[in-house]
């Protein structure tokens, strides 16, 4: 396991921010760490990195117990915690140089080359000499990612890495993360963007009010839910009646569609029956339930702030 925690708990006075979380992030995975704002994702990440001490529980990073193993393991961990933070009056390059200087395991002889490469990977080379205070939010985010990749890493812990990026930047960061994972690194990706998880993650963990309410490979989560058929038609009520007659559950309609959970029935039978009954079918699709529905069913509510 790249990240492993047992009973990890953090209480701030009376408020329990993280409650007995048992994370299991397999090596080589891209782990989507999901949850509404305030559900304890960032506090968990701070606990993992040793920035705050747990009230109870323990955890390991890359097999090393934390915080005792921090000097050995943290140089192999790149992180982005709660947004970028740099010295405003230093340039992007100088900020990276400072972080590199603080790293006792970094080779000063290769600093310039490594910094240049990291800046290049995030597409920031052109603005490397500009002061950080003049950077846009997207550029700041890119610099933070460059800092996380300053040395070869076995684990990246990234807290909302695409926050503030433009669509182009978002795509670049996603492909960057995929590349890093393809090289064998593990990525723990905290996000509230479900599309992000659907596109690149192999595993998912869902936080809700400080608890880890679900954790599984994405495919496994998907398998547990039923695909739905979606019929596009100008007579959705008739279509819905046919679907019900065929035994589909959970049938719903909009102005131009009717949907239902497919169950064991073959989809082509559905189309045949619709056509046979004279319902005009303008479009037909079998759709996997999206993550949002799964998410809502797990957290029991929508994407609201947890209290």
């Amino acid at each position, binding site marked *: 396991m790249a990240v492993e925690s047992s009973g990890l708990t953090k209480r701030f006075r009376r408020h329990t921010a993280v409650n007995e979380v048992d994370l299991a992030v397999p090596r080589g995975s891209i782990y989507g760490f999901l949850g509404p704002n305030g559900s304890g994702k960032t506090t968990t990440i701070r606990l993992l990195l040793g920035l705050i001490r747990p009230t109870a529980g323990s955890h390991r990073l890359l097999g090393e117990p934390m915080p005792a193993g921090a000097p050995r*393991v943290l*140089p192999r961990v790149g992180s982005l915690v709660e947004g*970028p933070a740099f*010295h405003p009056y230093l340039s992007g390059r100088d900020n990276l140089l400072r*972080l590199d200087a603080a790293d*006792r*395991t970094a080779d000063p002889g290769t600093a310039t080359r490594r910094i240049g490469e990291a800046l290049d990977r995030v597409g920031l080379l052109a603005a490397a000499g500009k002061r950080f205070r003049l950077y846009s939010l997207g550029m700041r985010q890119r610099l933070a990612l460059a800092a996380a990749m300053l040395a070869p890493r076995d684990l990246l812990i990234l807290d909302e890495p695409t926050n503030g990026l433009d669509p182009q930047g978002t795509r670049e960061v996603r492909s960057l993360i995929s590349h890093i994972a393809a090289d064998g690194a593990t990525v723990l990706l905290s996000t509230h963007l479900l599309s992000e998880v659907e596109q690149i993650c192999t595993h998912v963990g869902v936080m809700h009010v400080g608890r880890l309410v679900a954790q599984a490979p994405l495919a496994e989560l998907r398998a547990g839910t039923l695909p739905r058929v979606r019929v596009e038609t100008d007579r959705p009520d008739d279509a819905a009646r046919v679907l019900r007659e065929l035994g589909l559950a959970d049938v719903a309609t909009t102005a131009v569609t009717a949907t239902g959970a497919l169950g064991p029935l073959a989809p082509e039978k559905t189309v045949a029956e619709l056509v046979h009954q004279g319902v005009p079918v303008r479009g037909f699709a079998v759709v996997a339930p999206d993550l949002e529905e799964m998410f809502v069913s797990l957290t029991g509510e929508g994407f609201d702030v947890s209290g």
Partner: protein
Amino acid sequence: MSVAEAVETPAPARARPFGTRFLRSELWLIFGRRRNWAGLAVLAAVPILIAVAVKISPPGGGGGGDGPNFFTSITSNGLFVALAALTLELPLFLPLAVAAIAGDAIAGEANLGTLRYLLTVPVNRTRMLAVKYTAIVIFAAAAVLLVAAVGTVMGLILFGGGPATMLSGTELPFWASVVRLLGVCAYITIGLAALGAIGLFVSTLAEQPIGVTIAIVMVNVLSFVLDSIPQVSWLHPYLLTHYWMNFGDLLRTPVEWSNLQQGALAAAAYAVLFWTAAWARFSNRDVTS
């Protein structure tokens, strides 16, 4: 997953046992910052002002203020410009400079959010305190030496050098006097280093550097105020600043060591006490900034 587990390699990260790279980075941060340049410029302006003012209207003797009075000696030897400037800047300007740097040390990094990224590099927390404190002391020494150097240069230009008359009335050759001046700088730095330890501790308590700076300056001023109230004379030997103005004892022949030793001892006691407090506070603190 099991395959990945099997090819797992042991930690390649080997730390250099000792290095000055982080400290140099810290100094580069301090001395590269424009605000600090402005502060140092103000500190350097004082001896220039003194030298020019005395040149325009030489004092007739007497004068007030704490500690030894060097103004009357300036016209006889330029070295005394440096001493007069140090005397003037020691109660407020020099402590303020140290307080500003101490405020940046931990609270400043916490305020920017860079603290969490330094800690996850990782920088061991004790090492962080050691590097930050060393940088504060180096800055204090640099500030004191800057004032002394500018004062000496201005004094030599406007009033000339030569043998200097010590406070005890005897004359010392010029270079011997310069050595005494360097001794004064070292002694003042020791006092400021103790203040820096208090600053480091306060810096671990807060996330607003300006608040830390104000708090340290208030501690310093309060110490001077208490030291001037005779009703609490029992307290005086324990005050941080009580022995600061005793640097004049280095300008006697022979040097009057007793108070200087007391001063150095008091500074060391303050430094150790607040260094320990800073460590106790910071080594286990939750970093939520």
